[in-house]
């Protein structure tokens, strides 16, 4: 496709501040147009524009203006005098669409992946139906290389920036300073051992690349055990892999056994290890019938197996859908609310994830044991547990840079299939296939940590909200594709911008940081019982800081406007005490303005 030649100015954000539609059109649809699988986008757009009114929720004023569908966006131009002068929505973030017509007008309800619900009242029945059909077609395009990140060229950012911030090599350098027991292996250079691993992985020094290849053949998807985290204070390690392919015949693999033996031998003489299987013992046994299974005790001396069943896949997605149904209910009466919250079981998933992570962390910190985490594929709940355990133990991963590195290393490079898992959010009418909000569950767990330890995370809730939004639909390339291999094939690194470079701009950082952060060198042990866990919603004393509702002119996608937590952020107006928190923020940073001091003495007039 002629995508590469698409001019940089095909992006609407370089357009003048008050664009008129004609100008917009000429900017958006000129010359070599982006194509969708050989078909031009324009063929999918049935109606270019219509007059419409947009309702954005209870506390926002409605917007009237000209509605326009482009290849990647829905635009509403309320006219040159209005503020904001242009409203736009990435079509990819539309999760489901409903249309209704009555008389000579129609209504389109858009439910977005970021859990927003938007209503468009459009003049003209034909226009309504056409626009609805266009949105439907364009929002469900599956091709990666025609997606918006490949065309997004924001001002002030350079391509290729920040893509090399967080590869495994960087983490290896950190470990190498502490221990000689591990090495960086490039056995997966061409993704032949394991398509979902990055090119370089960290493995025991004593194990050579051939052994790795054999071990890879014994593990589902080639995901042999690799180092996830080195806990320097105790010299223990956290590993992750996929299930061994023991199958009904109880197959064994000498190299795989050797690999795990080497891990224990390197840690310290007589070290113990625990295999945390994220499935129930029953499920692990059943997996044998389909070629999977779990490590037999006799074959792995020194390793003990623990089963901590975590929900994944469809039940998790359904839990998310039910939670959003409960949250979207306009009349949340008390009695129904609690039983619905209980019924959707979301918080018990949070609890299970956190307590399993605690278990793994506890094993490393208190028992001095090495931990191997795996479930079946090792790309979902496994990553959830390993990344949370690191947040609990490792003060570095609680910094802004460290957290980004953790996401990059433990989720993106570790092969969490974002494209499959985040294809739809909670509102989709289509039957879920591979969708599961496992990354959202991770973010929720981090939010719980942040709520319980309000000073210990350098990033605030804004960061978590931004990550949630971008994991489902983003103008940046970071969460595209399912694995490093696919990203290489699509040249994501060279042709899209990295989310991290977007987020690390100074003016974005203000919204993402926790103003109360104090480095905490200790482990943070969360309380995991249901009395301590909360639904991710606004808490007057949480770290929610107002992000500012106005989008910044250059990077309209980066402004997450809300601070009512995640699940209720569009239905409930932001907490009033944010005004106070704005002040807290002002105090905590040096951007203090006149008259914002909280004490009386501040307002004393100067004599």
């Amino acid at each position: 496709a002629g995508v590469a030649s698409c001019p940089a100015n095909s992006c609407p954000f370089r357009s003048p501040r008050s664009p008129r539609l004609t100008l917009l059109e000429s900017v958006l649809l000129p010359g070599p147009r982006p194509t969708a699988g050989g078909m031009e986008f324009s063929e999918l757009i049935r109606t270019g524009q219509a007059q419409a009114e947009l309702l954005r929720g209870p506390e926002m004023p409605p917007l009237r203006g000209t509605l326009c569908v482009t290849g990647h966006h829905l635009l509403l131009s309320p006219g040159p005098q209005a503020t904001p002068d242009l409203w736009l929505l990435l079509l990819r973030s539309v999760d489901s669409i409903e249309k209704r017509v009555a008389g000579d007008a129609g209504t389109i309800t858009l439910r977005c992946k970021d859990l927003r619900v938007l209503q468009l009242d459009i003049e003209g029945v034909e226009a309504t139906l056409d626009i609805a059909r266009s949105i439907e077609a364009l929002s469900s395009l599956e091709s990666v290389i025609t997606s918006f990140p490949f065309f997004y060229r924001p001002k002030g950012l350079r391509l290729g920036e920040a893509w090399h911030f967080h590869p495994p090599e960087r983490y290896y350098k950190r470990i190498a300073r502490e221990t000689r027991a591990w090495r960086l292996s490039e056995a997966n250079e061409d993704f032949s051992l394991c398509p979902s691993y990055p090119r370089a992985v960290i493995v025991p020094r004593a194990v050579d690349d051939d052994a790795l290849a054999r071990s890879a053949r014994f593990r589902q998807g080639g995901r042999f055990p690799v180092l996830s985290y080195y806990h320097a204070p105790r010299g223990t390690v956290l590993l992750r892999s996929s299930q061994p392919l023991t199958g009904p015949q109880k197959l064994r693999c000498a190299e795989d056994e050797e690999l795990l033996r080497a891990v224990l031998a390197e840690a310290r003489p007589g070290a113990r290890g625990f295999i945390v299987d994220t499935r129930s013992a029953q499920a692990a046994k059943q997996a044998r019938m389909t070629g999977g299974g779990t490590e037999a005790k006799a074959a792995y001396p020194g390793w003990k197996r623990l089963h901590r069943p975590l929900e994944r896949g469809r039940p998790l997605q359904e839990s998310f859908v039910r939670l959003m149904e409960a949250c979207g209910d306009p009349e949340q009466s008390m009695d129904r609310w609690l039983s619905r919250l209980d019924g959707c079981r979301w918080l018990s998933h949070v609890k299970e994830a956190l307590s399993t992570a605690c278990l793994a962390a506890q094993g490393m910190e208190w028992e001095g044991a090495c931990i191997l985490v795996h479930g079946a594929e090792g790309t979902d709940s496994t990553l959830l547990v390993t990344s949370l355990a690191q947040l609990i133990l490792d003060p570095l991963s609680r910094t802004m840079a460290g957290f980004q590195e953790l996401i990059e290393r433990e989720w993106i490079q570790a092969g969490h299939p974002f494209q499959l898992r985040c294809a739809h959010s909670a509102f989709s009418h289509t039957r879920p296939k591979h969708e599961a909000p496992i990354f959202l569950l991770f973010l929720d767990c981090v939010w719980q940590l942040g709520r319980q330890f309000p000073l210990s995370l350098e990033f605030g809730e804004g960061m978590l909200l931004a990550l949630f939004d971008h994991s489902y639909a983003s103008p940046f390339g970071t969460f595209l594709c399912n694995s490093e291999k696919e990203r290489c094939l699509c040249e994501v690194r060279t042709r899209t911008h990295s989310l991290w470079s977007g987020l690390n701009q100074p003016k974005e950082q203000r919204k993402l940081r926790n103003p109360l952060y104090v480095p905490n060198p200790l482990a943070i042990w969360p309380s995991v019982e249901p009395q301590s866990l909360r639904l991710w919603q606004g808490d007057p004393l949480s770290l929610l800081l107002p992000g500012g509702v106005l989008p910044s002119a250059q990077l309209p996608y980066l402004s997450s406007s809300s601070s009512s937590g995640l699940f209720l952020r569009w239905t409930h107006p932001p907490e009033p005490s944010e005004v106070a928190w704005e002040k807290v923020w002002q105090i905590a940073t040096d951007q203090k303005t006149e008259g914002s001091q909280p004490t009386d003495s501040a307002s004393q007039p100067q004599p």
Partner: protein
Amino acid sequence: GEQLLCEASTVLKCVQEDSCQRGIYGRLVCTDFKIAFLGDDESALDNDETQFKNKVIGENDITLHCVDQIYGVFDEKKKTLFGQLKKYPEKLIIHCKDLRVFHFCLRYTKEEEVKRIVSGIIHHTQAPKLLKRLFLFSYATAAQNHTATDPKNHAVMFDTLQDWCWELERTKGNMKYKAVSVNEGYKVCERLPAYFVVPTPLPEEDVPRFHGHGIPIWCWSCHSGCALLKMSALPKEQDDGVLQIQKNFLDGIYKTIHRPPYEIVKTEDLSSNFLSLQEIQTAYSKFKQLFLIDNSTEFWDTDIKWFSLLESSSWLDIIRRCLKKAIEIIECLEAQNMNVLLLEENASDLCCLVSSLVQVMMDPHCRTRFGFQSLVQKEWIVGGHCFLDRCNHLRQSDKEEVPVFLLFLDCVWQLVHQHPPAFEFTETYLTVLSDSLYIPIFSTFFFNSPHQKDTNMGREGQGAQSKPLNLLTVWDWSVQFEPKAQTLLKNPLYVEKPKLDKGQRKGTHFKHQRQLSLPLTQSKSSPKRGFFREETDHLIKNLLGKRISKLINSSEELQDNFREFYDSWRSKPPNYHGLLLPHIEGPEIKVWAQRYLRWIPEAQILGGGRVATLSKLLETMEEVQRLQEKIEERHHSQEALQAEAASLLRTSARLSSLFPFALLQRHSSKPVLPTSGWKALGDEEDLAKREDEFVDLGDV
């Protein structure tokens, strides 16, 4: 005046620690004031952790009034203990009203001592008592020489005519209402206080006609001149003649309070269309069971059912309904310019609750500590809430025991939690206030009415004791806490209302604007004749006891008005010195963790929680203050900044989220995991082994 009643030695107090049991040997004593456990090894009990020490009640003390239930363990079986016992238990479990749970193992105690202590404790905590036998009196007699600080320093006591006049003046209600002394010496009615406030034109001779029933009594006036009134219902009568008299009487009353300058009166009948005391009682008794936990296994077991258990108690729903009712009333006062008349049988339970909630939300003065204490004094103590019966201090009737006051505190806590900067006091203040209900050295919560208090204040004392007893008031916090601990009762985030200097004319103007910034839909308040008639009839029907229930004809309209009012308030940034409404959506009503969860070690987060945020904030604010001081050094800033505030918070690096409570737990930095976690590793190992064995068998 404390007397030892019985004691037992070598009692083992069991403490849960890191999911294993630990015991401390000591003496268990029961006095006429409290049950106390005195450890043999004093140092182990009293270490320096107890910064927030209560001077009256120690960590191992339980006042007799604080005991809720006593259980005995017989051969591993738990049974409620009451009355005469045939067999004595090997373990005593005491559930307290402040939700502490004590385990005392009596296995190593001499048998006769066991008999004596167990029956002693049961007798002294559960047998009905006479008012005169309360510890309060023996304490006051013994502590006669202690000079109590003047209660007026802590709150307006509302026991003089002057106090009421001040309150009228403060709320600018003195134009239409007057304080009367018709009940001086409780001549008219023992239920009412000696002084109270009624509408000015009301003839004073009307008050005694039905012993104070059917008289509209003033609670509070809001800035617009509308007032909140309360009235106790007339007794139900069958006789038509009497009914006619009652009707005429009420007609007369109604005419006086309707005529201008009075606004239209809206009646809120709290005894028929609102909560019942029975509901509150049932809900709380279910709710508290969620927190009275005997051991951690039991605690983890409730995990999966937590939300459904919480919901089935419907305690949170009751809180929500109270808050909602208060907002509805505020809407009438504020937006519709109506007077609101609260009606209840004795006007001493839900009336107190609703009217004080309204005042907390509308009157910023009630959000200061002094104002809040005065409010409790006005609406609850002098207002005649039957604390003695509602707390069941005399153990005379369990039926009467209803935690109405606690419900009020929980409602206020929701507000404090949602709007932290608006209150001068903290949640810790509310928690210790709720604990003080059961400390029988304060007279505040131990009488049913001011009359009862006055008649029992040493009038019977002969000879030497001619002067009235000197009873302590709970508002003197220095009795319970050292000054250092008292800083924890004060909210460091609270910003006082800017004082209006003469030089700050702008400020005055601003204030005025603020008050008017509320949605006043004046047009709606134009008196409609039909509406008035209907309302009168309605009122009279209600008052006469012929309650045609659910006769709220305008309920739909009311709902709309309510929504509109509520939404329009929510859409503005809150003014912490103006009207303050709570969020009442389901997800916004929370469990008051500090009060209910504080003794459960599993629920605490070491080094985390809100406490951490607060202490950090304090630090930052102090720093800002210090910097400002430096800036203003040359102006000689007249204000002494309280930099010492909550130094307690700062000294400890890793505070528990349940700070300042949860001190029973020795601080360990081990994580707390369900018992199915690391501790139960053995079981899982077995499981893994078994499975492997099974596998091996399959191979053969």
